[in-house]
């Protein structure tokens, strides 16, 4: 696939991006900056340590664990064990929407809980205060579950959050208490926290309730966090198609749903990076296959619904899915036809997440726009190159520190939903069963793929490519806009959305049209600053 637009010579650009770096840094960064070839898929260095001082987009393990994966479940009391900051910064900032059924149902999303560790707790240990905090949370709210998140000092001073949680769980009797060792220094990015969160949710929640789930086509939605209401749109489509959503990991979810999730017959994965561990573990223990889908983009949503119907192999479901698509698509098409003439031929860059930088390219394609450069903030090689590279990924010291759960088939509950032969047959039909082909196969040849892009590289890229839109996060938003280029936040959606499904696609088209064609970008220069200003001439009204 060649890009429709003319791209500058990427090898020269790569040179430009690294030539200011000290030699060692340049050498390291050059392995993470790759000129794409969708046919051969070159290797991308990813999930390695960020160069100290380089100004990275990345956050920490705590952010990945508490902020991303556990944050969206509304009825867990999430207590951050540490000094006050970490809990404060992750308080409501990820826009995880949730919709309790009744006004009295538990919803702690608007609350922020912390042990607010003080110096004496650092010196003499904080476990006592933690247990006190758990007791107080229980006395106040009587929640179904309390989760404890370790911040940096906790691991260093040797507080055992797991022992404290076990003790309190036993003491309280009717409250599931469990801890996460997600100290910020673990791993090299948020990614470590995702893995730690997956392990904890799998160990402490999944499988706690064996009541068979009702419904004919039962699935779990993995790696969808209901930012801006994304999960609501997908829920709407499932309901329309007659697909039962048992649990979501974890947008708009509840403890009860997650505890019962092993009763589903399929796991569909949206954000591969943050939740693939859960898919693998549930497959091994319960025999539930997982399938990569994508609900970002109208065409992609249609394709994903068809894949789900194909998996269940039911003629009625297939027909219903076609009806739903036929009902939804014309509205989308009408909008895209109206907007596309204004977006056609424009260029985009996406540096965000571990999945979004891939899937949002679908929406830009639907608008006739080309992604000239993209990369993830915290992904691994498999997210770029596809899961077939997994056996070749070298496990370094930072990854080794993250626990790999030893999962085996459950003696009672293991029940392969499909036979090996059936799975092979589905794969042959193009379903990404237990697989993910990654970002690069979809990107144009000679486009740039850059992992963990630095501030310096982003500015250079904008200078060299002058993209029509740049997608990243809040830290980059106003930097890029100061350069006169609109930035679409793909973590918070600039407080808009949803962007999934058919309605989401329409929202996105409209937002991008508004942004790239906004008159404000032409107002930056004052009239007297513009070149070729004509000499002031007197003019008189007629």
């Amino acid at each position: 696939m060649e890009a429709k637009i003319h791209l500058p010579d990427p090898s020269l650009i790569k040179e430009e991006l690294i030539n200011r770096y000290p030699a060692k840094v340049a050498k390291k960064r050059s392995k993470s900056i790759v000129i794409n070839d969708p046919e051969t898929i070159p290797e991308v260095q990813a999930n390695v340590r960020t160069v100290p001082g380089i100004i990275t987009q990345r956050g920490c393990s705590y952010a990945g664990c508490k902020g991303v994966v556990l944050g969206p479940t509304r009825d867990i009391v999430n207590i951050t064990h540490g000094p006050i900051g970490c809990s404060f910064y992750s308080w409501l900032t990820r826009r995880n929407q949730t919709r309790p059924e009744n006004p009295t149902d538990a919803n702690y999303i608007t609350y922020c809980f912390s042990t607010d560790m003080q110096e004496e707790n650092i010196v003499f240990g904080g476990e006592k205060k933690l247990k006190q905090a758990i007791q107080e949370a229980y006395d106040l709210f009587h929640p179904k579950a309390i989760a404890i998140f370790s911040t940096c000092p906790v691991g260093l001073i040797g507080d055992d959050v797991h022992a404290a949680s076990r003790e309190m769980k036993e003491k309280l009797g009717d409250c599931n208490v469990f801890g996460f060792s997600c100290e910020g220094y673990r791993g090299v990015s948020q990614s470590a926290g995702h893995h730690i969160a997956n392990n904890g949710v799998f160990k402490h929640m999944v499988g706690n309730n064996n009541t068979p789930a009702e419904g004919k086509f039962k699935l779990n939605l993995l790696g969808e966090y209901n930012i801006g209401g994304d999960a609501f749109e997908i829920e709407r489509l499932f309901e329309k198609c007659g697909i039962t959503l048992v649990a979501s990991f974890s947008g708009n979810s509840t403890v009860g749903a997650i505890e019962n999730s092993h009763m589903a017959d399929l796991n569909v994965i949206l954000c591969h990076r943050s939740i693939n561990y859960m898919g693998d573990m549930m497959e091994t223990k319960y025999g539930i296959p997982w399938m990569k889908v994508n609900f970002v983009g109208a065409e992609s949503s249609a394709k994903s619904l068809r894949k789900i119907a194909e998996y269940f192999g039911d003629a009625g479901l297939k027909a219903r899915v076609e009806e739903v698509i036929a009902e939804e698509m014309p509205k989308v098409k009408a909008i895209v036809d109206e907007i596309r003439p204004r977006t056609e031929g424009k260029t985009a860059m996406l540096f965000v997440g571990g999945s979004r930088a891939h899937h949002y390219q679908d929406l830009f394609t639907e608008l006739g726009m080309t992604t000239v450069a993209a990369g993830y903030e915290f992904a691994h090689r498999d997210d770029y190159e596809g899961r077939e590279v997994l056996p070749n990924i070298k496990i370094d010291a930072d990854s080794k520190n993250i626990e790999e759960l030893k999962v085996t088939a459950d003696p009672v509950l293991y029940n392969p939903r499909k036979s090996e032969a059936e799975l092979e047959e589905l794969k042959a039909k193009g379903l990404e069963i237990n697989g993910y082909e990654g970002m690069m196969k979809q990107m144009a040849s000679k486009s740039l793929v850059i992992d963990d892009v630095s501030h310096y590289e982003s500015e250079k890229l904008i200078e060299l490519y002058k993209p029509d839109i740049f997608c990243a996060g809040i830290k980059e938003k106003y930097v890029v806009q100061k350069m006169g280029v609109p930035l679409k936040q793909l973590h918070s959606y600039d407080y808009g959305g949803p962007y999934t499904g058919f309605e989401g696609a329409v929202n996105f088209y409209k937002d991008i049209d508004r942004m790239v064609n906004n008159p404000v970008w032409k107002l930056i220069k004052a009239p007297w600053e513009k070149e070729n200003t004509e000499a002031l001439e007197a003019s008189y009204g007629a």
Partner: protein
Amino acid sequence: MLLRHTPKEVKEREGLTINPAKTCQPIGAMYAALGIHGCLPHSHGSQGCCSYHRSTLTRHYKEPVMAATSSFTEGASVFGGQANLLQSIETIFAVYDPDIIAVHSTCLSETIGDDLQQITKKAKDDSKIPEGKYVIYASTPSFIGSHITGYANMVTGMAEQFSVSTGEKKDQVNIVAGWMEPSDMREIKDISKAMGAKIVLFPDTSDVLDAPQTGKHEIYPKGGVTVEELKSTGDSKCSLALGCISAEPAAIALDKKHKVPFETLDMPIGLSATDRFIMSLSKAAGVKVPAEITAARGRLVDVMADMEQYFHGKKVALFGDPDQLIPLVEFLLDLNMKPVHIVSGTPGQRFEKRMKEVLVRAPGANFKNGLNADMFLLHQWIKNEPVDLLIGNTYGKYIARDEDIPFIRFGFPILDRIGHSYFPNVGYNGALRLVEKILSVLMDRQDRTALEEKFELVM
């Protein structure tokens, strides 16, 4: 209800903080460092700290907030972060070329005992700091104090590490800005200029966090106190510290190091605190108060008198930071309003003492600061004694909506409105703006809820 689980009954808590009215030290240090011209703040800890602080400051200002991190991994946490900081210093000077790197610590680097003074000295000894460039530092452990403490520590660091005394006194007054907005710092400079007072204001985030759209990103915007100015603070004839918690420590440091005498003032928010500031500045700089300042004061008092009926007896709940709350509460009392509930997560006996002095005029008011003085408690107090007005940062909107209380955004962070970085709260003009805001929300409420026959045209 957004905060549906908050019960009316208040129970003492010791372990659990819920909905904090503070955050941690390093973000304050980062904010302060942005008020030095040509400075790149650096967070010595895990990446998450830097990312969280930059994100929060960015959401508050809608401006670029540049800062770097030592990117600790597990290895650095076990063996110490020296190598990470040295590598950071090298990378930053090579790639981003700041004049100054201002390093602050985090709970992680403090817990493992990294010594910033020793590491920055090593960087100098190893020639990692180019000629004419600087690395300054502040110890900002997150498990002590609050974001205000971190701000104070970095401001103290810049005073201590840059100031020199040449032996020759300069005809200038240091003004140490407590944690205030760029708009407030600009207003302090404007007031001083109007008075003809020669000042060095530090830190100074104006023209940094309110930078214009020019089509170009300036990593080091025009504003910020310069190194030369900071150096000269040791020669100033005196210092005025605007805030006993966030500004005074830097003034003390200058007094200790260079015998620069100081006076600590409340931050000039509201009428009385601004009066004291103007008097002190006039005395310190040896200048007369010009007629235009007196006129600005007169306009404020005029509005206060004309609209007094709308303020009288109105109950107010507030949460936020010490140096802003103290004069704000005093101003509410000057307006004849009734501050009834006040919380701040920032600890400190100075704060308690000063607030209690101000609250002598508000018998029965609830005030708590430090541990477990959080917004959960404030909300419970409000449930027990309802108020007419809530003043605090954006997180207050959840209480305001549940309890249906008129709400003014004030303090840090303000994530959902603009204006705080452009229009001041300090000085007489700032006070006039506050009066306008208070009146607007109270009158909007009256307009919305008045019976039809009681709906007023003129107010």
